[in-house]
């Protein structure tokens, strides 16, 4: 079923862009079909478990390169979130973009491409698959953030998001490669726990990848900027799914890094910093959407902290919160989008009294908001309780630090939730609203009701969460508790709600506040701009375009590279020649080469080089390598012709060279020549193993079905190399044509 679903997404991308040209609504509806099918399939899988869906598409078996997917319990939970919320977001978009001025034809297909990439990411079972789909989500996210690309600020925000998450992706790749090298497998399930220095380095690299994707301090600066995207995108990518990719990665990698101390310390430091700084950010901003975005940074910080702790209870709480957060945060974003469309503003200084004008929306938002604050009777409450129990259950200094951080973070969460609900819906001058749009209210209501239903019918979310948690950590046999009674965690929870709402009320009185600047984002942009200025100047320095300097550099490097071989040559045992023809040919070759350096005219030099080549092919013949000789001869012929044709454009003789430069060139050329000669002598006198000639010959006749060994190697045994080489040839040829055309247009 996995390949069918992925193919359905691919087909949907094409179908949605075709349909999108006719009508935006049709494009969105077509795009919602693949996620709908996936959701239904995933819900069906819930009952047919424990049989996991699995699919593998081999590419290069020797390198373990394959697309490998496996849908385990955690992946199933993520699938339901990604595809289920996806369907609702597509439906919501039909209302968001209105019926007259719909989105671009590429919007539905980009969003669907993201949805498919996200599925590939959560289903991935090999490091390559994981990385590829990880990057796909970054790229599709870039397209979606930059959707309103005519505005400068949007393009800058999209670039910042791409650069930060893209750089994180490279860091992740490095970490994964270290893991693959240590445990000799590319299959995620089979990677052994990392230890020692390699484990530490890999843990940090993977953490950077997760932190960039999940917008953790100090990489969080891209997330508020990404709010430049249309609200359906923000609700889907930047709250429910893509930012969860980093948390998901931490959940999956947790068992592998269980022994690396740095995983816990750095991960938790990152998480706690984000939890607190995100909460403060949410209290500082006036734009309702930005308030939610900063709230997301804070919530993700809590998730990252829990998965960094990695104790069974923390893992369980993390997954419960992952589910709850996806539901309530997506709801709140959808609500903000509706308010934005119906009132024309998201600024809380201008909003107010919406409970009267938008009662249904207000109810939906309140239910989601209370879930976010962790108030009963909602799914968020049970998740927050589990998180509190997890940190209170730790011992010693860990208990103190983590408990304080989580409690403080939760107080901030309650405060910004209160501020959000009061300032938008609470008392105040009623904002003018346009008529309701059912397509926008309904999806938010569905998600919000899911949060309530999850509390009432606790068995359903409990099954999802506890199975996934047990899969990650066999000791995590907990279940969600609807009403814990007067236990410590519950009392702490009530205190948090009280303190937080009082703080929120106090702050929400001060409706008009100066908009905080975004220094972090400015620094990130400055860094990106810096790269963009340094890179060209560095390139101009290295790739200066002076052919003689290139050749001298390469020759000097080749000469230096031969130094290690010098000690391996048995100088006294060298045979100077095998047959008398060799010294004769050597004289011809060396003579022509020397003549080439003395000839004043370029044509003469080209012909001298041709003579060198011909001598070489004669030498090949004397060694019994007709194939090589033939190729060399033909290549020489073509090169000489090309030289002669090219020389028509140049001065006939070489330009004068100043004496020092000339001397340097002579020295380096001499060193290069001597170095290569000695390296060849070393290679042919002290081989480090037996040449695999016999094996290859046998293989050539059996597998390749040919007797010309060289050619069978070229076209069969090492055909991938040949493919690469001919692609290079074709690229060079296209380059030649392009250069010639530039010249033509200049002449014309």
């Amino acid at each position, binding site marked *: 079923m996995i390949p069918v679903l992925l193919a359905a997404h691919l087909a949907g991308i094409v179908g949605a862009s075709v349909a999108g040209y006719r009508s935006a609504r049709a494009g969105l509806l077509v795009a919602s079909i693949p996620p709908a099918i996936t959701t239904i399939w995933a819900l069906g899988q819930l009952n047919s478990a424990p049989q996991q869906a699995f699919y593998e598409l*081999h*590419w*290069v*078996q020797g390198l373990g390169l394959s697309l490998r997917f496996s849908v385990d319990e955690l992946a199933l939970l993520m699938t339901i979130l990604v595809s289920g919320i996806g369907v609702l977001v597509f439906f919501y978009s039909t209302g968001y973009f209105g019926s007259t001025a719909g989105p671009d034809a590429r919007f539905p297909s980009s969003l669907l491409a993201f949805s498919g990439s996200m599925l590939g990411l959560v289903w991935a079972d090999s490091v390559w698959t994981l990385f590829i789909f990880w990057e796909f989500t970054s790229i599709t996210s870039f397209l979606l953030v930059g959707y309103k690309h005519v505005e400068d600020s949007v393009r800058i925000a999209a670039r910042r998001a791409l650069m930060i998450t893209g750089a994180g992706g490279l860091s992740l790749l490095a970490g994964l490669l270290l893991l693959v090298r240590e445990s000799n497998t590319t299959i995620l399930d089979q990677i052994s726990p990392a230890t020692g220095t390699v484990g530490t380095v890999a843990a940090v690299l993977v953490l950077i990848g997760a932190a960039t994707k999940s917008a953790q301090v100090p990489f969080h600066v891209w997330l508020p900027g990404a709010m430049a995207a249309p609200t359906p995108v923000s609700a889907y990518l930047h709250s429910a799914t893509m930012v969860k990719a980093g948390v998901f990665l931490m959940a999956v990698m947790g068992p592998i890094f269980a022994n690396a101390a740095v995983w816990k310390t750095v991960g938790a430091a990152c998480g706690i910093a984000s939890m607190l700084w995100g909460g403060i950010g949410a209290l500082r901003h006036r734009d309702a959407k930005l308030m939610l975005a900063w709230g997301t940074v804070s919530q993700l910080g809590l998730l990252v902290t829990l998965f960094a702790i990695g104790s069974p209870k923390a893992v369980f709480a993390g997954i419960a919160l992952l589910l709850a957060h996806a539901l309530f945060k997506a709801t709140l974003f959808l609500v903000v989008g509706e308010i934005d469309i119906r009132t024309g503003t998201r600024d809380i200084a201008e909003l107010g009294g919406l409970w009267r004008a938008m009662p249904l929306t207000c109810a939906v938002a309140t239910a989601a908001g209370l879930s976010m604050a962790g108030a009963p009777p909602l799914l968020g409450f049970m998740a927050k309780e589990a998180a509190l129990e997890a940190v209170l259950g730790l011992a010693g200094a860990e208990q103190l630090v983590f408990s304080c951080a989580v409690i403080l973070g939760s107080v901030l969460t309650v405060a910004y939730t209160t501020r959000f609900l009061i300032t938008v819906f609470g008392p105040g001058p009623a904002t003018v609203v346009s008529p309701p749009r059912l397509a926008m209210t309904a999806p938010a209501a569905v998600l919000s009701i899911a949060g309530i239903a999850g509390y009432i019918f606790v068995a359903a979310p409990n099954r999802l969460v506890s199975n996934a948690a047990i899969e990650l950590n066999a000791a995590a046999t907990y279940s969600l508790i609807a009403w814990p009674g007067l236990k410590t965690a519950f009392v702490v929870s009530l205190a948090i709600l009280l303190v937080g709402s009082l703080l929120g009320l106090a702050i929400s009185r001060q409706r008009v506040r100066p908009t905080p600047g975004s220094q972090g984002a400015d620094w990130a942009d400055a860094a990106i701009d810096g790269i963009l200025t340094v890179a060209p100047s560095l390139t101009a320095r290295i790739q200066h375009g002076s052919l003689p300097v290139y050749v001298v550099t390469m020759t000097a490097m080749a000469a230096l590279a031969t130094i290690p071989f010098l000690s391996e040559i048995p100088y006294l045992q060298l045979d100077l020649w095998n047959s008398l023809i060799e010294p004769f040919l050597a004289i011809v070759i060396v003579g022509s080469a020397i003549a080439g350096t003395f000839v004043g005219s370029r044509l003469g030099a080209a012909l001298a080089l041709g003579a060198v080549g011909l001598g070489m092919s004669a030498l090949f013949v004397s060694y019994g390598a*007709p*194939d090589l000789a*033939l*190729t060399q001869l*033909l*290549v020489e*012929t*073509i090169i000489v*012709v*090309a030289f002669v*044709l*090219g020389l*028509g*454009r140049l001065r006939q003789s070489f330009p004068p060279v100043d004496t020092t430069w000339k001397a340097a060139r002579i020295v380096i050329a001499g060193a290069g020549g001597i170095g290569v000669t000695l390296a060849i002598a070393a290679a042919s006198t002290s081989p480090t193993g037996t040449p695999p000639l016999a094996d290859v010959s046998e293989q050539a006749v059996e*597998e*390749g*079905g*040919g*007797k*010309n060994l*060289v*050619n*069978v190697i*070229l*076209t*069969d045994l090492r*055909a*991938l190399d*040949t*493919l690469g080489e*001919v*692609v290079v*040839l*074709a690229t*060079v*040829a*296209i380059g*030649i*044509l392009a*250069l*010639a*055309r530039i*010249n*033509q247009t200049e*002449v*014309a």
Partner: protein
Amino acid sequence: MTASRSSIVHVGIRAASPLAITVGVYLFFAGHSQPGGGFAAGLVLGAVITLRTVTGLQRPTNATGLLSSGIVIVTATAAAPLIWGGTFFDQRVVSVELPVLGTVKSGSALIFDAGVTIIVIGLVIALLDGLSTSEPSAIETDAEGRP
């Protein structure tokens, strides 16, 4: 380009071309078991085109077409086995009994080699085309009366 106007050269090259092409084709098919192969064949055929171009007998310009079809052929040969469940670059060998030639063995490697040949020919033509364009255009501007 210095096009030779000598009729001896012209006739000689006209006469030699079919022979050289035959040699190129021979090298291409011989390559599997004897010296030769797609690269060498492409160079020989490219050399024929070079000779004919330098003497002004023809003026090939279709390098891009050859290059792109060559790339399509090599990548398609490489990827085709994936369709029927094989791996990248799976080799297929087919033996055919032909009346005159006897048993002829041929495989997907031959098609791959053909792609290599086409790319090499394309490269040679690109070289000729690219390196010789400036002069004719310069002459054209002269013909229009510009300095």
